[in-house]
């Protein structure tokens, strides 16, 4: 039985090879259908994985409030009122931090961060690094890891100690050859002792959410920052000088669980709305963003499924059309085979095998192309792509299914021919 099947397959393959160009053209529809679906799925999957990684980096149980410079025309009276001799005042305050800490339930940690750019130097080497003032529990709300030494402690903040933990990029630039621990570096004119180094957060995504280098950072105690540098930040842009006053750039709130995130997010939004008349803070909820990405992915997949469906339908119709022509063309052969003892099922399997051969060959080449395209895209367009093997299997399976569905009718038609009529056919 099995060898009969193999011989039927061999017969079908030969018959397809007899008309190579025709067979190739016939399988093009399915080929491109499968190729485009596999490729687009890989690209879409890559994009969403990249986005998901980005948001996961922010911490899925976190709710992050950030200071945002209000646009000049957003609320002009309030904007003017906030402008005093010292420049623009906006953003998160220590009061916000206290209120969030004191009134919102379901919260595990609330951590404030103040970040400014400061020239940082060691000996003759220097680098413009982001200086982040924060507290010891920053470690719990951010995906940072200590490489050597230690992170900031409670006592660092209480003592307002001049200690710093430096990022990998700062270490690389300031201490290319020596051990930075216990060395002193100059940050914004003040001397700080390096007590620890961070592990690199680089890899594929070197840029963080805002595009600044994650590793080009120095952490110091928030209290020290307040004492040494105050809240006023001088900015030079296009020849004009402006100052702005921001107490905190970021407040990270970590919810007790994933389930608590939506409530915590709402509570943070409510509190900030109450405390800020101006539109000078924004709340980022990584979990919501993740959900959005997932939603987009679902839509992308639905669109792809529609495209796949249409292209495979078109491909299948093409295959069916050619097979119907083949059946007509080979009516006499069918009659002869029937006269020589072929049963209907023999004829059906003969033509079904041919259609299946066309569609699965198209599917196989399509899969190959569909895997090759993301490779090229990844190489030249610098996009992450992920070829999911279940998607490949599905696309190939569907191409085989197309072969059966669209091959069945021509095959049945061939089999149902009256042998006498078929033999008379010219």
């Amino acid at each position: 039985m099995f060898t009969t099947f193999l011989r039927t397959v061999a017969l079908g393959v030969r018959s397809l090879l007899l008309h190579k160009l025709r067979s190739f053209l016939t399988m093009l529809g399915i080929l491109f259908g499968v190729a485009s679906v596999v490729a687009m799925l890989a690209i879409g999957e890559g994009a969403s994985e990249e986005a998901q990684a980005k948001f996961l980096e922010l911490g899925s149980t976190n709710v992050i409030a950030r200071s945002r410079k209000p646009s000049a025309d957003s609320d002009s009276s309030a904007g003017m009122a906030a402008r005093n001799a010292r420049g623009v005042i906006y953003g998160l305050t220590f009061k916000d931090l206290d209120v969030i800490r004191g009134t919102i339930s379901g919260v595990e940690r609330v951590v404030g961060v103040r970040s400014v750019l400061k020239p940082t130097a060691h000996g003759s080497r220097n680098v413009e690094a982001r200086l982040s003032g924060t507290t010891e529990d920053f470690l719990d709300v951010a995906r940072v890891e200590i490489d050597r030494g230690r992170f900031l402690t409670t006592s660092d903040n209480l003592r307002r100690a001049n200690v710093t933990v430096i990022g990998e990029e700062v270490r690389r630039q300031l201490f290319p050859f020596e051990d930075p621990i216990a060395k002193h570096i100059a940050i914004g004119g003040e001397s700080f002792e390096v007590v620890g180094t961070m592990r690199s957060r680089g890899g594929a995504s070197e840029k963080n959410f805002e595009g600044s280098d994650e590793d080009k950072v120095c952490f110091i105690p928030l209290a020290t920052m307040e004492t040494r540098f105050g809240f006023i930040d001088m900015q030079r842009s296009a020849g004009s000088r402006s100052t702005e006053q921001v107490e905190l750039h970021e407040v990270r709130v970590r919810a007790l669980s994933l389930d608590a995130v939506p409530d915590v997010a709402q509570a943070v939004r409510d509190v900030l709305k109450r405390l800020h008349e101006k539109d000078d803070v924004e709340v980022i909820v990584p979990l919501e963003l993740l959900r959005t990405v997932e939603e987009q992915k679902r839509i992308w997949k639905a669109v792809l499924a529609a495209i796949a469906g249409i292209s495979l339908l078109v491909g299948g119709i093409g295959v069916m059309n050619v097979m119907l022509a083949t059946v007509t063309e080979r009516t006499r052969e069918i009659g002869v085979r029937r006269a020589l003892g072929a049963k209907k099922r023999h004829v059906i399997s003969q033509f079904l095998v041919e259609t299946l051969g066309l569609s699965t060959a198209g599917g196989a080449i399509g899969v190959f192309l569909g895997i090759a395209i993301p490779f090229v895209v990844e190489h030249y367009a610098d996009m992450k792509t992920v070829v999911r093997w279940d998607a490949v299997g599905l696309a190939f399976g569907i191409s085989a299914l197309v072969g059966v569905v669209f091959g069945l009718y021509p095959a049945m038609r061939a089999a149902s021919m009256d042998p006498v009529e078929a033999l008379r056919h010219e």
Partner: protein
Amino acid sequence: MAVSELGDRTDNAASAGGSAPHGEERPVILEARDIRRSYRMGDTVVHALDGVSFQVRQGDYWAIMGQSGSGKSTLLNLLGCLDRPTEGAYLLGGDDVAQLDDDDLAEIRGQRLGFIFQSFNLILQLTVLENIEVPLFYQGIPAREARERAQRYAELVGLGGRTHHRPLELSGGQQQRVAIARALVNEPLVILADEATGNLDSATGREILGLLDQLHLQGRTIIMVTHDPNIANRAEWVLRLKDGKIDRIEPGGKHPEGVRTPERH
């Protein structure tokens, strides 16, 4: 000619060759009992066969003659189980096949019948050998055995050296030889030929008829439709059809001495 090697058939047909004097001893292998075949064309009914009865014994050589449209092909298709009679019984090897379903008929065609067509009807993409193998494939004969048998029959019809050629690389006569080998390869009960020489020039036609004569001498049963009285002369019996009815059955040129004329029913 290679045909002389045909004598290896071991069944009792071989001993009951066409020249055997006592036809009565040969069993009836095919019997038509009042078979009718009509076609409905719109609201008129065409009676292509209108009550035909006769018996064919093992080893017989029959010619079916008659004017165009008299029902020769229709009869041959019925005898070949390609078609079913509208009425009547048709017994092949003792079984009534008139009532069988499509699969059974296919099986009977594959096992008990061999067809030779006017236009050869070889499958053009297959080689000579593969064409001869086709009936064996549907019998589920293993590939190796099928190949050996096909090779043997190719040699038998004198094409042992051409087995890997395609049909279109052969002359008409050679193609018809392939078709004959294909009709023989399943060792059928009856060989059915519809104007087997109709597409050949007279010399080649004679060659093919010579081959059929040899096969008959080896004990094979042959039923052949023809227009040509000379061809009919080679048969033992000539069945003349007229308007779907048997006009008469008469002894052919090879009619063995002393054998009774088959009775008409």
